[in-house]
């Protein structure tokens, strides 16, 4: 049998999804099910004077209406917890229904339970909330010491004030620098926009006190734990969380939101299944947003263009409440990545996490790493410009050399492996760099549409680990993954994984891992996920961790199964287990033709008729794999744009992505992950932006006002790979889910800035809309006229 690992087999997930048989949360219908709709604050900041629910309660089809008072009376804790703590973090209460103050547009105030979707939606307009509107602040820097205070516990709106690196050493590097590059930037706030809006269906059974929650989640076990600890307060063993098909997440379905606790509360109260499904507008207002940094950054270089120091000062918007991993994203997921692919001898970063009257901010595809990559790659681009060095050359001069690994950065990480230059050289070759530069020169002379070429040489840290270290950094969770590999008596295999996919194809790739190790047809392996009652335990899918951590847990379990299988086979073959090997679907005595089939061993494990005396029956193994380190995927991306100076329109002409994600389980799926990440990063660079007005209204609350990447504005991508296997996990895999979204924003912006360099434009903040680009071109023209 040919090896299945590393091949592009088709996804087994797809037949259901292409025929409309996949069941997402809102597709589920339980007997006697009621429907909930949530009353949300239209104000960014207001006191709640009173809530009158009488008219809503009397409306046709309405079963019940609840407010914070009902939650308090019920005795459940009713709070949304934060899952990551930092020193001196100002933790505040986050009630599932606001009791006296609302702090962002979308804050939940009351809930209506009705017989059907339409009645519930009608009745929420009848809930009369008397608000006293208050001043709001939305910008993270403006929030610092602003009169509009989000939480009394943080009177200056600072949730945390955190730094990393050596300040004195960095200051000294700047004093000695030959060149200095400065950059002020805003990393635009994004709304994740999984096409499936969040939804929850809670089914509480008063007879046995058990709650089953169907939820749009990337990590059902984590949701169950957080609900047990803080919001619902039911014993963990009485709560079952199920992730049905999940229609995309990109981070936004990691967090514990008030909504799933609210519907669970409703189901407990009315004793019926209760479903809630967000509208798009509701999703935009309440799904955790991403990014939103205001940053000042400086790079010091010597006379040869070698970087000698980096200092960064960032205001990170956390929104109105601390979201599940909100404090981790702009600290340990951000500032620790500021060394990029470069050997930078001195780095210091200062980050203030700011409360504001906006939707909570948390992990969105890349989560901190895109923000870090943007800072580093924009600075390096500017440094190349300033020193007259080609952008490829200045990067080559500063790469961590291949013989320097493991490489300890100045910001706490140790890069386990890497070889950066070959990816860049391959990208230059694929994009046809020399020809492009020649074309660019010609176009500059001719006028008209200008060509821009932008680079991004990025690093990411995936598979947050190990647990002991992340615990010291503030995580309130372990960062291992678990796998249970069960061999059936007839030899087929079921894998129970704690990784919980939402489009990544785990059922296919995890089966490939097991089939490869056991030399079984891949059809003989099934993968089960996304159900706390079926799966022993799990941490879920985020941070590009599933292959590296979840996959490794599976390998560990399969190894245990093989070891036990060898002992059973050795007994049957009257040989020593050390002499038995598994190959070609058979256990054989090395160097002989004596062997027994996989199936013979599997059945004997359960018959236990002809069996070693000192061995338990059964062929199954559970593993909890805790990685030794992060993994460090990297790559070199080159973006080519054409900019029309008359309109400011930016057109993507080419995008080359050379990624190194280590070994690859399924190349087709890996490429698909890269494509999707690229589109999201390109979206951030060119179109996407969540906008609040001064009063805290979300102006980009629907798809009318928030520009997602559309098919007619995209281009086909050119992808390739180099392979530097991860040295510390058994598969040598590193993770790929976020790479494209991390790498592409600076590649696109650098390309546009390259095109705009004849106008002396050095930096524009994302998104680079036509209007922004056109205006920038016009201002020097006007000035010189």
């Amino acid at each position: 049998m040919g090896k299945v690992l590393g091949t592009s087999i088709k996804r087994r997930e797809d037949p259901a999804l292409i025929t409309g048989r996949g069941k997402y949360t809102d597709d589920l219908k339980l007997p006697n099910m009621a429907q909930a709709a949530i009353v949300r604050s239209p104000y960014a900041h207001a006191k709640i004077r009173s809530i009158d629910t009488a008219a809503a309660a009397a409306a046709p089809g309405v079963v019940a209406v609840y407010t914070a008072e009902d939650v308090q009376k019920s005795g459940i804790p009713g709070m949304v917890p934060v899952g990551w703590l930092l020193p001196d973090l100002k933790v505040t209460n986050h009630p599932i229904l606001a009791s006296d103050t609302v702090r962002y547009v979308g804050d939940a105030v009351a809930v209506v339970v009705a017989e059907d979707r339409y009645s519930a939606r009608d009745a929420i307009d009848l809930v009369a909330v008397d608000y006293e509107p208050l001043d709001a602040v939305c910008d993270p820097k403006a929030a610092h010491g602003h009169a509009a205070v989000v939480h009394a516990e943080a009177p200056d709106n600072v949730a945390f004030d955190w730094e990393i690196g050596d300040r004195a050493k960095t200051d000294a590097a700047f004093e000695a620098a030959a060149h200095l590059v400065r950059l002020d930037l805003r990393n635009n706030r994004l709304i994740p926009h999984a096409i499936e809006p969040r939804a929850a269906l809670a089914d509480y059974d008063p007879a046995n006190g058990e709650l089953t929650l169907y939820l749009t989640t990337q990590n059902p076990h984590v949701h169950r734990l957080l609900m047990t600890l803080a919001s619902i307060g039911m014993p963990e063993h009485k709560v079952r969380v199920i992730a049905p098909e999940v229609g995309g997440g990109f981070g936004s379905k990691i967090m514990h939101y008030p909504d799933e606790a609210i519907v669970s509360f409703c189901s407990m109260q009315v004793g019926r299944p209760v479903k809630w499904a967000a509208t798009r507008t509701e999703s935009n207002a309440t799904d955790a947003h991403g990014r939103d940094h205001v940053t000042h950054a400086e790079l010091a270089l010597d006379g040869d263009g070698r970087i000698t120091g980096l200092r960064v000062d960032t205001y990170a918007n956390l929104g109105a409440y601390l979201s599940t991993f909100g404090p981790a994203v702009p600290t340990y997921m951000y500032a620790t990545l500021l060394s990029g692919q470069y050997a930078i001898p001195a780095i210091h970063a200062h980050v203030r996490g700011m409360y504001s009257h906006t939707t909570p901010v948390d992990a969105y595809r890349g989560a901190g790493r895109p923000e870090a990559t943007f800072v580093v790659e924009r600075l390096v681009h500017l440094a190349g410009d300033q020193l007259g060095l080609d952008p490829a050359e200045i990067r080559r001069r500063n790469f961590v050399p291949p013989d320097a690994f493991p490489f300890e950065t100045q910001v706490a990480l140790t890069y386990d492996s890497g070889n950066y230059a070959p990816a860049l050289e391959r990208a230059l070759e694929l994009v046809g760099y020399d020809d492009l530069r020649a074309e660019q020169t010609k176009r500059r002379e001719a006028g008209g549409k200008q060509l821009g070429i932008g680079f991004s040489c990025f690093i990411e840290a995936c598979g947050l680990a190990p647990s002991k270290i992340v615990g010291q950094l503030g995580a309130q969770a372990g960062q291992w993954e678990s796998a249970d590999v069960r061999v059936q008596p007839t030899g087929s295999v079921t894998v129970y994984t704690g990784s919980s996919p939402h489009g990544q194809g785990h059922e296919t790739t995890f089966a490939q891992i097991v089939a490869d190790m056991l030399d079984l047809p891949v059809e003989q392996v099934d993968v089960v996920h996304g159900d706390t009652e079926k799966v022993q335990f799990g941490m879920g899918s985020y941070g590009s961790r599933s292959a590296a951590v979840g996959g490794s847990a599976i390998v560990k379990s399969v190894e245990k199964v093989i070891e036990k299988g060898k002992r059973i086979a050795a007994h049957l073959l009257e040989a020593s287990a050390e002499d038995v090997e598994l190959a070609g679907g058979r256990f054989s005595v090395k160097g002989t033709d004596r062997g027994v089939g996989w199936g013979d061993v599997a059945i004997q494990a359960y018959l236990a008729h002809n069996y070693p005396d000192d061995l338990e029956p059964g062929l199954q193994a559970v593993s909890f794999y805790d990685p030794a380190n992060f993994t460090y995927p990297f790559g070199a991306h080159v973006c080519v744009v054409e900019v029309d100076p008359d309109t400011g329109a930016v057109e993507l002409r080419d995008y080359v992505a050379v990624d190194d994600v280590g070994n690859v389980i399924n190349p087709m799926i890996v490429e698909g992950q890269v494509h999707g990440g690229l589109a999201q990063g390109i979206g951030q660079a060119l179109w996407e932006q969540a906008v609040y007005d001064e009063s805290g209204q979300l102006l980009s609350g629907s798809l009318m006002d928030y520009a997602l990447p559309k098919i007619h504005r995209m281009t086909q991508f050119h992808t390739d790979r180099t392979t530097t296997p991860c040295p510390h996990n058994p598969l040598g895999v590193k993770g790929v889910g976020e790479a494209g979204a991390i790498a592409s924003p600076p590649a696109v912006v650098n390309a546009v800035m390259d095109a705009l360099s004849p106008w002396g434009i050095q930096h524009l903040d994302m998104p680079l809309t036509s209007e922004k680009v056109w205006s920038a071109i016009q201002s020097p023209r006007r000035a010189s006229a």
Partner: protein
Amino acid sequence: MGITIKVSVNGKSHEREVEPRRLLVHFLREDLGLTGTNVGCETSLCGACTVLVDGEAVKSCTQLAVQADGAEITTIEGLANGSQLHPLQQAFWEKHGLQCGYCTPGMILAANYLLSHTPDPTEGQIREGLKGNLCRCTGYHNIIEAVRYAAEQMKSG
């Protein structure tokens, strides 16, 4: 209150009483149980709810069920011929044109409509034809590949 409508969905006739304000997508999903048609935005912008109404791609989240009275509707559940996948379904599978699958039914039906009037589309025509459908997972790269591949298969088949 209710208005009686008669529609044919995936070749099967239905006569139902519906509220005048009931959206076609809720009629399909909740009244007929055809949950393959998804709702992504309720504002005609994402295209997840695209179905064919009398052969034309329609966003069923912004059409009322009563407007479909007398129409022939095809949803994703009705596209395959028994166990024989439609070439577009096969192509999305072969070319990895989907990840989470949520936009996929709408995307396939929009592509079906495109191929019905432009059987051999250029890349530009595919992009133009599908610009009313959003996908957040694939970056559209493999959707382009899938539609091209399906067009070739349908031409040769």
